[in-house]
């Protein structure tokens, strides 16, 4: 699981063009969206849906279903562990 979290941080940085950020800069439990988060927006949410599909074979059909999944890196990792193909 810690390995998945590190991998996921790197993948998120790449997918969302979070330039000048390293995995060390991201707290696994910090909110990704919202004012305290990384300032992600609706397009970033869609990119995270694509990331889950491309890298882990998990499909999320509805962006609104993604809200709970993408709360933090840790909730993403939990979801991947539970659903990966």
């Amino acid at each position, binding site marked *: 699981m810690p390995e998945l979290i590190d991998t996921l941080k790197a993948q998120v940085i790449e997918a*969302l*063009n*979070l*330039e*000048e950020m390293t995995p060390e800069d991201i707290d696994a439990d910090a909110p990704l969206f919202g004012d305290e988060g990384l*300032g992600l*927006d*609706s*397009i*970033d949410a*869609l*990119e995270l*849906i*694509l990331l889950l*599909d*491309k890298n882990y074979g998990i499909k999320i*059909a*509805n*962006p609104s279903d993604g809200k709970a999944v993408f709360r933090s890196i840790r909730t993403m990792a939990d979801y991947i562990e539970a659903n990966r193909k």
Partner: protein
Amino acid sequence: MNRNTEYNVAITPYTVYLAASSMITSMGYGVEDNVRAIAAGLTGLCKVENPKISQHPMILGEVASSVFPFSNGKSKARNMLTDCISTVLTDLRSAGIDSVENLSFVIATAKGSFDGKGFEQPYRFAEECVRDAVSLAGLHGEVGRKDIIVESNACVSGVSAMIIGKRIAEDNPHRYVVVAGVEMQENFITSGFASFKSLSKGFCKPYDKARDGLNLGEGCGAVLLTTDDKVAYNLANGEEETVILSGGAMSDDANHLSGPSRTGQELCMAMQAAMSQAGIGPDDVSFLQMHGTGTAYNDDMESKAANLAGLQEVPCQSLKPCFGHTMGAAGVIESIICAEQLSRGELYGVRGFCEPGTAMPLNVSAVNRPLDMRTCVKTASGFGGTNAAIVLEKAEFGRCKRPDTASPFSAECLRSVSIADGCVKITDALQGQSEKVFGPADMPFADFIRAAHQSTGDRNLKFFKMDDICKLGYITAHFLLDGIGIGHPENVGVMMTGHTGSLDTDNHHLDNITRNGDDMASPSVFVYTLPNTVGAEIAIKYGFKGENTFYYLTEDNGMSESADVKTVDIQEYMDGFLKLMMAKSDLEMCVVGVIDFINGEYFSKFDFLKRI
């Protein structure tokens, strides 16, 4: 060089008539067939299983070969555009006009012509269709490039083209402008919208509580706008039947590339400006036709705008359940149907509407019914936050409202910035001399633009999510506007032109889906496959809510002088046509520029104009 240009702009210009129209859609060939089908409650949407259009079956408004057959090996967009333009030109000829003198063309498309491998350069594609259509209709003379305007403003393209056409026509009593919008569907577009999860699982249900997204469509529409009332009456079978285009305005949400304004304020601004130009108020509006795509956010935003504009009681309509979302063609196709409803005294219902479900109330019904007609307001909204609104009126109500006066328009250029060959240069109006403010930096574009960005001290993280041409535009705008006091950003517009548009990003998206399949389309790449995103990013950064447009030029238009009818001098284009657009708008200030980016090669030159 004196950069100040003056015009005499008629405040109350000549009346602009919709004298003729043509269309090809999933519902049929020709305006008559389309109107008959809509009145009969039909739709052109159906389940399409065509791997050249989408990887997975989807509900889409496809122009079937039974509706419009062709076998010349050219793209569907080319065939539709040439056909629709030649139809209205044939009408023009039948009314006694047989030369291209005083004739201009405004062509609207989001993506243009896909030839199986990639997109044709949009200006060239449109230009060739115009020349072929002129030839087919048997008109004499050669159309100069100054008389062919090609614009790409995402989903508002069609309505903005109507506005641009009106502006070109209205200062002269014998002026003819063909406005056409065209769009074809294929994997490039369908995969992108699928990645946005904005497609309905079934048939779109605009304004309905159960709405779950949009359906895509393809098609073409063309209208003949003219100030020549005799031609208009001739083609319309009499004065009573004629419809005029009496107002038009554009605005920008300056909020987000794909998410619309939360308040609807900016769309309301465009509606009110269009109505004010037409000299009408909410009580004069017989019906309202908005974009109505059937997505949660768009329809909510429109309901807010309509309420802010005092139009919430007016019967409200969307034609997307008939045609699907035909993107660049939508504004023209749907405006034609508005005009038909006005002259026939019939209002068509919103097919499939059951239960209201927008944030603010709207007057929507699924029922077709007769209605006393006077005027309608037609709007569109699109990616990049653009909005456009026009007023169409029955001629008997709209003509001869105000006395004919002319007003001088003048604009000065406060500052110019150009970026090329690793250098950023500024020319200040007061000093009149160029100064290099960054560079020379002999390095690849990615490093150059990053270094230039760092030098500005800008801390906007969104910069790194932009595609290369938007980064170039963003940095050019920074140097252009740095230190200039802008009192009313809501009255500042952005008008861009260029040859390559979003081609570099288009290639990126196309390459991705070709290799990895439609399902791997990246929304953050796709959102930049529209050239108007350059202006949109600038508008978002500075809160510029004025009109935001992109016009294509072809690659052999340069920055040096040429008297050739086939060449457009870009500086002259910026000082001429684009300033005319500014003169006709309410803009106090405007960013006007040329910008190009392809495969690491880049060029930009922006001017900041101020009305004086």
